């Protein structure tokens, strides 16, 4: 596609429910990243995929958070038993070639999650 797409754009859920957020990277981009932006914490790195594997999961805040990537393309971020502090904008980014320090990351529009 023309850019990184994410769905849904907005998600409202009740505390304790599970949610799945989807990211479609730019076609051909092998590296994929998830970030979170919240009022109190700013923009935080969550997880990085190279192909279908995740060599860096260091930013996932708890074991309620998980992510997978299939076919080297689409990625899903799952939050189980959501809490109110999970409310944030979840941003996905992709880049063409992993391992190159100078590679630009292209961001999607984000999913705004609100946990009531």
């Amino acid at each position, binding site marked *: 596609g023309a850019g990184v797409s994410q769905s849904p754009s907005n998600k409202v859920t009740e505390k304790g429910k599970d949610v799945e957020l989807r990211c479609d990277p730019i076609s051909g981009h092998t590296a994929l990243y998830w970030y979170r932006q919240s009022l109190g914490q700013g*923009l*935080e790195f969550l997880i990085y995929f190279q192909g279908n594997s995740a060599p860096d999961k260091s930013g996932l805040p708890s074991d309620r958070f998980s992510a997978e990537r299939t076919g080297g393309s689409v990625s899903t971020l799952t939050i189980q038993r959501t809490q109110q502090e999970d409310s944030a*904008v979840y*941003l996905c980014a992709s880049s063409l070639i992993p391992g*190159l320090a100078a*590679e630009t*990351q*292209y*961001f999607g529009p984000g999913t705004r999650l609100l946990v009531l």
Partner: protein
Amino acid sequence: SQQGEEDPQALSIQEGENATMNCSYKTSINNLQWYRQNSGRGLVHLILIRSNEREKHSGRLRVTLDTSKKSSSLLITASRAADTASYFCATAPRVGATNKLIFGTGTLLAVQP
């Protein structure tokens, strides 16, 4: 935790004036990037400067990097109302095997017409 700190947190200028935003970071980096964000949604990449570069230009944007002071600045010349947005610096740390970006706290720029 965030690595970068930006100042000012907010900046209000008149159209036509120049806007300067500063960013400081803590560890060695491979590169530093500046992003723009409108309305709290997607980030738009503006410019990337490598650790061995000192200055870079792109249109009305000028970025400087001082690795000895671990700081960078973004200058927007001849600002326009459409430049109103939040601006973030992001560093790619030298350590580690990933290209994750560490973002600064951001500067909210308001350009008054």
